[in-house]
């Protein structure tokens, strides 16, 4: 083996190997994005300046980004639990929608003192989202329905149900069915004095994140979920209560998604619109996939996504760019990072193999001239010819 190869193996086996492909992936994604912008005759610098100006330059813009980020992070926390358990909870969009519907049902029709009002709304949001997810979990364990198909069906039902509510019972007088009336002030989540941010949502999200972090990093339940994610059948044979865990993981994820839905209607919109989730459930799925189900990465990746999404509207209005381009940019980013993550894993396997081979001296050890025969009476230097 040449010295150059040795050095290459040494370099590539350290952390550079872990980070380099990620950077290459991001660079390739950026190159693709630049190509698209060039095709649209837009200066990349102008896009960068605009994104910075509309997201991070002013405190109120920063608050907007955080407000967009919180429900995504909340959904990601729930998804971390289900993904770890090997449950692809595609039904999170429906859970967000049902959470929003649950919160709206209280906001529109129940009048209580402020604190009780807010508590009941959030309780209903969590309960509705949780129940919706639990249905999918029960169908998975009792009916043998894959959670992806069950989730798609439940998403569809939730969206149809909320449309029905907007068109018929909850439709405001003389309205087109696009949203309910604005909620009374008493029903809306309180905001911070300086920024338009909901402290309650911040507390909930922070609590959810710490809970998930502790659960997945050191708890018995976290270990059980991890085992189920790798092999559910084996986990069951080891005595893990797989059915209970599936229900519980789905329920908790549904509660978190429901609370995110509650935040959307009780704070950001102050009414229930059509398509209330706005795709943040699917965005959260992408975030968790991109973070490779690693809890510590999720806040950063989700914040980056929130940042880019928050810049969607200004891009359309100021640079005459289609707002869907932001979605395309994110898609390219996710695609490239996932591909290069696969490349990283392949490289890692190869380097490990080479390292081990080098350690065992497999390639350099001189071949012995004959085969060692210990017992065979009729052996003749390794030949079995007759």
């Amino acid at each position, binding site marked *: 083996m040449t010295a150059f190869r040795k050095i290459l193996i040494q370099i590539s086996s350290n952390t550079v190997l872990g980070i380099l492909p990620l950077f290459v992936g991001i660079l390739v994604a950026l190159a693709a994005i630049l190509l698209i912008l060039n095709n649209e005759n837009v200066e990349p610098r102008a896009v960068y300046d605009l994104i910075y100006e509309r997201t991070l330059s002013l405190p109120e813009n920063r608050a907007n980004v955080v407000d967009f980020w919180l429900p995504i992070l909340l959904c990601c926390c729930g998804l971390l639990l289900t993904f770890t358990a090997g449950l692809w909870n595609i039904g999170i969009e429906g859970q967000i929608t049902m959470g929003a519907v649950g919160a709206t049902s209280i906001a529109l029709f129940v009048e209580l003192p402020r604190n009780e009002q807010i508590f009941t709304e959030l309780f209903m949001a969590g309960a509705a989202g949780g129940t919706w997810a639990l249905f999918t979990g029960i169908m998975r364990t009792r009916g043998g*329905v894959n959670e992806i198909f*069950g989730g798609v069906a439940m998403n569809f039902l939730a969206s149809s149900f909320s449309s029905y509510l907007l068109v018929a019972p909850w439709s405001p007088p003389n309205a087109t069915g696009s949203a309910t009336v604005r909620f009374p002030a008493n029903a809306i989540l309180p905001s911070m004095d300086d920024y338009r941010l909901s402290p309650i949502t911040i507390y909930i999200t922070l609590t959810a994140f710490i809970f998930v972090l502790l659960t997945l990093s050191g708890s018995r339940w976290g270990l059980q979920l991890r085992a189920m994610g790798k092999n559910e059948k084996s986990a069951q044979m080891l005595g893990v209560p797989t059915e209970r865990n599936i229900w519980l993981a789905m329920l908790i994820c549904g509660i978190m998604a429901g609370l995110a839905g509650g935040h959307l209607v009780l704070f950001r919109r102050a009414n229930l619109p059509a398509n209330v989730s706005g795709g943040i459930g699917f965005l959260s799925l992408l975030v968790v996939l991109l973070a490779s189900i690693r809890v510590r990465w999720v806040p950063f990746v989700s914040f980056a996504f929130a940042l880019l999404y928050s810049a969607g509207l200004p891009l359309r209005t100021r640079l005459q760019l289609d707002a869907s381009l932001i979605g395309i940019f994110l898609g390219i980013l996710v695609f490239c990072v996932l591909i290069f993550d696969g490349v990283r894993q392949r490289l890692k396997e190869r380097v490990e193999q080479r390292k081990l081979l080098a350690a065992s001296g497999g390639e350099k050890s001189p071949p012995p001239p004959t085969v060692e025969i210990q017992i065979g009476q009729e052996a003749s230097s390794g030949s079995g010819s007759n």
Partner: protein
Amino acid sequence: MRLEIHNISKSFGPLKANDHISFTFEGGRIYAILGENGAGKSTLMKILSGYQSASSGQIIIDSNPAQINSPHHAIAHGIGMLYQDPLDFAPLTVLENYIEGKPFTFLMRRREAEADLLARCKILGFNLNPHAMVESLTVGERQQLEIVRLLSLGVRILILDEPTTGISAEQKSQLFQTLKNLAREQNMIVILVSHKLADVEELCDEVLVLRRGKLVGYRSLPCETDILVEMMFGKRISTTTPQPLYTDKPILKIHKLSVPARLFTIQNINLEVREGEVIGLAGLDGSGQVEFMRTVAGLGRPTWADQLTAIVALVGMWWVFGKILDESSAVLNLARIAILILVLGPMLKTLYLYIRQRANNDQNTQIMLNGKNIGWRGYRDLLERGIAYLAAGRLEEGLVAGLTLVDHSALAERSSLPHVNWLRAWRRTKQAITDFSIKGRPFSQIQTLSGGNQQRVSLSLLPTNLRLILLENPTRGLDVESAGHIWSLLLNRRKQGTAIIFSSPDLDEIIDYSDRILVFSSGQTTLVENPEQMTTARLGELIGGKS
């Protein structure tokens, strides 16, 4: 035909699976490769059949160096391998499987292929229906299909990995005759990898012995079995027949149980298992032994709650989707119906399984553990009550690849605490490594251990206070020494009154270790009370349906 291997080496990290192996195989001869678990037999065969490449060395076929980088290359050079579990496609027909792997043609030319298949079967004395689904075949028939397929691809060097596992005595004798004919009449090289010395002595002309990756011995047959064992292990292995330890106290009573299996529904199984008793289940692959044990262990059967959920969900989904079908959009409706089918399909299957199960078992069906009906309870509940099950696929259904031994210990621990006491789990793992002679470290990932060590880990993870252990082929793929150790660990459990029910394709193992034998044949069961008076040939006849 001549196959030469020169200085074949293969390393996996520091482990040398093959260490400069050289040998010459001649046409017309049948060779056996013997060796304990981890000796490097499978690696050498995988190198020859193209599934792995050698780190160094050379393969020469008929004086021409051969570069073998894939199974495709190996077949092009005339080398084919028949696996213990044949590599076929269960949902396809025999003919479709036969056509698979042939050089690509746009049209499948079924008629030509069928005529070719039938002609080859006739020459070899096989009786395969080209239109039968492969999933309906026995393991023996699947092996026959694979042999015919490999021969049709021009294979001249045939490697067989444990081919007699899971086939009847009759099928084995037919297989051996075929292999002898191929070697003698067609001058082919046949290489057999097996743990079963009786098979090797019956079939082979030459024996090569591998130990720790090296070729350590070579002999022509016949020779004494003890010499072969000594060559394999470097020492003589003594086997002793276990003494019965059962009492008269029954712990499990099964009354009028019917179990649907792949080939038949086994009707009216009645069995009483006594404390400390070992019961062996004998039968052809797919005759219901595994399904019987899984039913007793509460695995894979729908319960009344499943049925209730399926009915409620079916009715609910049907009603809701009926309400929201939109007459204006055909495409949208199609999408909705597709979702409905995807959701309702599995539920209908659950319902069907439940109804089939109820239809097979009447009100008198009982499974009693220590006098209490455990009826249709699930596995976890039964594990708490003292019934454990170890499946044959250790990494598929038993251990979790990617987790360490310590992780497994923590998972198997019954504790109400929310956090894992890793120090205690580590200590328990260390203790298990010592007690069960596991070759591995506490933080080794489970899939890096050999099959025998994985089985030892599985046994170490079982709760101590079990009443009954059900095992599917407990020594699958293990050599004589490892198998003996697993059995000594299992038999030790009898001292606490634990009963053992196990299935095995190895009739000798069943006869050696069972206090009684339950034979599964053509949907019926027969209880053999005195295994010590039983011979493999007689047991083979019972399995084959001769009374």
